[in-house]
Each structure stands twice: as C-alpha cells, then as structure tokens.
C-alpha cells in the first residue's frame, strides 16, 4: 500500500488515469442499469 502510494505520488499521471477510469466506471454502470431496465421491459411486453 505504502509503495503504491509513493509510486502514484511520483507518477501523478496515473492519478489522472485512475480518475478517468472512475468516470468511465460511473458511465458504464449507468448504461448497465439502463440495459437491465430495457430487458425487464422486453420481458413484460412478451408476456
């Protein structure tokens, strides 16, 4: 943990990378949620 912290402190570009990845995770999970809702809708229409 300590080494990781030191590494990130020295190579701060990776912090930006982490932040971009976090934003991507957020966007992805929202899209995933939407997808699940569409599936539920499709099932309810089939019935």
């Amino acid at each position, binding site marked *: 943990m300590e080494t990781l912290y030191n590494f990130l402190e020295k190579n701060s*570009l990776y912090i930006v990378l*982490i932040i971009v990845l976090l934003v991507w995770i957020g966007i992805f999970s929202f899209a995933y949620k*939407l997808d699940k809702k569409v599936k*539920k*809708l499709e099932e*309810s229409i089939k019935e």
Partner: protein
Amino acid sequence: MKNFWKFLLFVLMTIVIIGTFVPPIVQYPKSFFEFPLIPGLEDKARIIFFHVPTAWLTVLAYLLAMFYGIRYLKRKDMYDDIKSVSAAALGFVFCILATVTGSVWAKFTWGSFWHWDPRETSIFILLLIYGAYFALRSALDSEEKRARLSAIYSIIAFLTTPFFIFIMPRLMIGLHPGSLEIDPATGQVRASSNPVIKFEMAANMRVVFFLSLIAFTILFFWFWNLAHRILKLEHVSQKEI
C-alpha cells in the same frame, strides 16, 4: 441528422482523452501541444478535463430535475416527472463521481481525502440533497404525490444553494482554483496568491477543457434521453396491465 450528435460526441471525447494524456508538460511551452508546468500540480493539472465536467453535470442535472418538477406542478403531466427523476438519477451518478474523483485527487495534492473546502462542502450537500430526494420518493406510494412532493422538495432544497455559492467561500479557506483568502496584512478578502489556487489555464488547455465540457454535456443529454424514454415505456406498459 439526429445521429450527428452521437458522432460529434465520439469525436470530441476522443480528442479530450488524447488531449488529457498526450501533451507533455514542460516549464516553457513552445509548441501548441505542450502544457505549461504549474508548480505543485504537474501532471495532476490534467484532472480538470474530467473532474470539472462531472461537477458541472451534477449541477445541470439538478437544475433540469427542478425545472421539470416545476413543470409537472404546472401541467400535471406524468412525463414531466419522469424527465425530472431521470435527470436526478443521472445527477446523482455524476455527483458521486465528482465527489470520488475529487477526493482521490485531493489525497495526492492536498494530503488527505477530505478538507471541507467550500466546493467540497457544496458537493457534499448536493449529494445529501440527491439522497434525500430519492429517500423521499421511495417513501411515497402514490405516483401523483411522489411527483408533487419531490418537486416541492427540490425547490425548497434549491433555495439554500445561493448560500453555498456566494457566502461560504467567505467563511472558509478554499483550496479550489478561484478561491478567496483573507489577506493577513489588511484583513480584506482577496483572490488567493497560492499558485495552485491562482491556477489559470493556458489557451491550449482551455480548448481541451471546453471541448470536454461540451462532450460531457452531450453525453449527459444522450443518457438522460435514453433514461426517460425507458422510464416512459415502463410507465406506458404498466398502464396497460
């Protein structure tokens, strides 16, 4: 024509990602793709292209949620409520993102995850308001009541925001760019002299920054559009049963 926006988003976001990572940071930039060095920030200055847009979308989403809430109160159209709640849901996601990305970055720049700087406090309050909004919605079982009361709550909660924007920076020491500080000599409020806080973007950074804002805004409207269309379909399909 309708798909134009999606392509634009694709192109812009690609430019933004390249613009975030590729340009080297040098002390004295000579060519257009070099970013100037800011002491104390270095590579971390690049966060601005991803962190600020999430914070901006949090606010935009709140305003939209409130706008459609008020429109619901005026027209009693259930679809206005659907638009309002979809905007709030997206806003909630971006609010969490803005908080988390900010605090990760703060750990490495300011030393700890949380500082209660005015902007941090405001985003925290927004997070609480979003949380309260959804808690309220889940506690109301009649659709009309839910739409009406959550719209009202969004208005009441909004009334406190001018305080956070205009007054709090006077009370607390800010760490975000553009914060004010108290001049130790005269006791007057002045713009901070700390290089991180004084932070001004070079022209080329500014271009990437605004492209990023545009890209994220398009992304937001696209997702919002999808979300409220899906909710609307859900609403219609339930009505038939």
